[in-house]
C-alpha cells in the first residue's frame, strides 16, 4: 500500500496512529453492503457453531424423530410440542434445525477444502515462480490444463473415481481448486522475486526456503486472501451441487445440498419448504461471502487504490 493516507473515519476513537490494519478496516467499512455481508456471514457461522444449543430438535437423533411429523407445512406443531417454523421433511425432521446442522457440514467442507487447496496451491505456485525454468513450465502447463476445464466437470470426474463421503469430497474439491491459488501466487511471486529486498536477502545468504516463505510469501498474501474468500463460496456451492446430484455427501452427512436434494422429490407436489428453506440458507451464505470477497478485492488491490 502506498503512503497516501486514506480518509480516517470520524468514528475512530481519539487520534490513533494509523496502522495498515486500521486503514484496511476503515476502507473495508466504507462499503455498507460489504459490512452487512460480513455481519450476516458472522451470524451464519455462529448459528452453525451453536446449532446443538439453539435448535429445538436434534435432527439426527433417531429417538427424537417421529414419522407422524413428516412433511408438515411451516408453522405446524410437532408431536413433541414445539413449533416447526419452517416445516418438516420426509423423515419428520424439523427443517429449521436441519438447516443449522446442515450449515455446519457445508461450512466445514468449504473451509477445510479451501484451506488445504490454498496451502497446496501456494506452495506449488511459489515453487514455480522461484524455481523457474522446466519446473515452472511443467507446473503451469498442468494449471492451464486444469483451468481450461470447467470446475463442475472436473469435480464430477473426480467423484466418479473416489465415490461419496466427506473425506472424498474434500479431496475432490482440493484437486479442483488448487490451480486457482497456484496461478494467483505465481503471478504475484514473480513480481516480488525481482524486487530489491529479495536480492538483499539472497546476498545475506539466506536459505531458499526462508526467502520464499518468510520474505516473498507475506508480500503475496493480499491476492491470496481475495481468491480464498471467493473460492470458499465456490467450494460450498460446488459441494451443494454435487450433493444435490446425489454424488456428493451421503445421507448420513446431511449438508445443505443433501437437504435440498431430499426435498426435490416433494417439490412437484407443492411441498416447497423442504427444499426451499435450505436453499435459501445456502444462497444467503454464498452471497454474503461473495459480498465480502468483492469488497476485499477492491480494498486489497493496490492498482485500484485512490
Amino acid at each position, binding site marked *: 500500500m502506498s503512503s497516501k493516507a486514506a480518509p480516517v473515519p470520524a468514528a475512530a476513537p481519539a487520534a490513533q496512529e494509523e496502522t495498515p490494519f486500521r486503514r484496511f478496516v476503515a476502507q473495508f467499512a466504507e462499503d455498507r453492503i460489504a459490512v452487512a455481508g460480513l455481519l450476516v456471514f458472522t451470524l451464519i457461522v455462529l448459528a452453525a457453531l451453536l446449532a446443538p444449543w439453539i435448535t429445538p430438535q436434534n435432527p439426527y437423533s433417531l429417538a427424537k424423530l417421529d414419522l407422524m411429523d413428516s412433511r408438515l407445512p411451516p408453522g405446524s406443531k410437532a408431536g413433541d410440542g414445539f413449533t416447526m417454523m419452517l416445516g418438516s421433511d420426509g423423515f419428520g425432521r424439523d427443517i429449521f434445525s436441519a438447516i443449522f446442522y446442515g450449515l455446519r457440514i457445508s461450512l466445514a467442507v468449504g473451509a477445510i477444502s479451501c484451506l488445504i487447496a490454498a496451502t497446496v496451491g501456494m506452495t506449488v505456485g511459489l515453487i514455480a515462480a522461484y524455481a523457474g525454468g522446466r519446473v515452472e513450465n511443467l507446473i503451469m502447463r498442468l494449471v492451464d490444463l486444469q483451468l481450461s476445464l470447467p470446475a463442475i466437470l472436473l469435480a464430477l470426474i473426480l467423484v*466418479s473415481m473416489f465415490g461419496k463421503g466427506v473425506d472424498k469430497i474434500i479431496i475432490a474439491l482440493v484437486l479442483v481448486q488448487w490451480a486457482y491459488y497456484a496461478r494467483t501466487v505465481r503471478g504475484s511471486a514473480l513480481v516480488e522475486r525481482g524486487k530489491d529486498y529479495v536480492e538483499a536477502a539472497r546476498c545475506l545468504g539466506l536459505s531458499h526456503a526462508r526467502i520464499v516463505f518468510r520474505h516473498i510469501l507475506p508480500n503475496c498474501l493480499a491476492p491470496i486472501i481475495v481468491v480464498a474468500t471467493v473460492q470458499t463460496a465456490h467450494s460450498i456451492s460446488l459441494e451443494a451441487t454435487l450433493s444435490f446430484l446425489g*454424488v456428493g455427501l451421503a445421507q448420513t452427512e446431511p449438508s445443505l445440498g443433501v437437504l435440498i436434494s431430499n426435498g426435490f422429490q416433494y417439490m412437484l407436489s407443492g411441498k416447497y419448504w423442504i427444499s426451499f428453506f435450505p436453499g435459501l440458507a445456502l444462497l444467503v451464505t*454464498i452471497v454474503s461471502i461473495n459480498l465480502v470477497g468483492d469488497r476485499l478485492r477492491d480494498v486489497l488491490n493496490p492498482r485500484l487504490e485512490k
Partner: protein
Amino acid sequence: MLAFILRRAGQGLLVILAMVVIVFFGVNVVGDPVWILVSPDMTQDQIAEVSRSLGLDRPIWEQFFHFVGGILQGDLGRSFVHGTPAIRLILDRMPATIELALVALFLAVILGIPLGLFAGLKPDHPLSRGVMAVSILGFSLPTFWVGLMLIMVFAVMLGWLPATGRGDLGSFFGITTSLVTLDGWSHILMPAFNLALLKISLVIRLARAGTREVSLQDYIKFARAKGLSRSRIIGVHVLKNILIPIVTVLGLEFGSLVAFSVVTETIFAWPGMGKLLLEAIQRLDRPVIVAYVIIVVVLFVVINLIVDILYSLLDPRVRLSGAPA
C-alpha cells in the same frame, strides 16, 4: 501459419492423451464394478464369467492397451449397464444437449447484449444498477438452486411451463428437434434459461465494459459530430465493436455449457448426455464415464483450436510471438 496450426493441434492431442490416461486409470483403479453388476445369489463361477466377459479379469495395463486400441478404431467400450457401445449411447443423447446449449447461448446473446448495452450507455440509471446487481447474483447463485426456483415458480405455483422432459418429438433422436413445436419450446425454455443464466451475466458484463470503452472513442465522437442518429451510432458503430470479444468468449464458453448441462439436465429430466453421465456415475458404468470425458475433452480441444486459429488470422501478433504459450 501451417506450423502454428500444427503446433496447436499437437498440443491439443497431448491434452487429450493425458486426459485419456488420467481418466482411464483413475476410474478403473477405484472399486470393482463386477459387484454392482452381479446379483447376490450368483455363484463364484458365474461372477468370474461376468468378469471375464467384460474383460475385467485381465491386468489393468492390458485393459488400457485394449482400450486405446479400441479408441483408434472409434470404439470407446461397451456400457456395463446397457450392453451397447458407450459412444453410441452418448452420440444418441448428444443432439438433445447441443440443442439445449444452443438455445442457452441464444438466450445469453439476446438478453445479455441489450441489457449490457443499456447498462453501459446509462451507467447511473437505476435500471442499470439493477441489471448489474442481477448479473452479480447470476454469478454467485448455484445453477441447481436457480433451477429449483424456476420449477417452483413457473411449473408448480403458476403452472405455466412443464417441469420435466423434452416435450413433443422428444422421443425421436437424430436430427429431429423439439424446437419445431410449441410444446417443445415450452419444455426447453426453463432449462435453457437455467443453463444460460451464468452466460447472461457474463455477456452483460462484457457488453457493459465494451460499451463504456467504445463510447469514448474518437470514431463515435466523429459519428455524433457528423449528425448520425443515435440509434445508428449505437446499433452500428458501438454494437459492431463490442461484439468481437463477446463472440470470442461465447465460443469458448460453449464447451462449459455442455459440461454444466449435467446439472440442468438432471433437474429438468432433459434426456441429454449430461444426465447420462450422472446415471453412469451413480451406477459405476465406467465405459460410459470414460467415453463421456473423452468426447467432452475432444470438444474442448477442438473449440480452443478453432478459436486459436481464428485469433491468429485476425491478429498476426499471436502467431508471430513464436514462443508456445
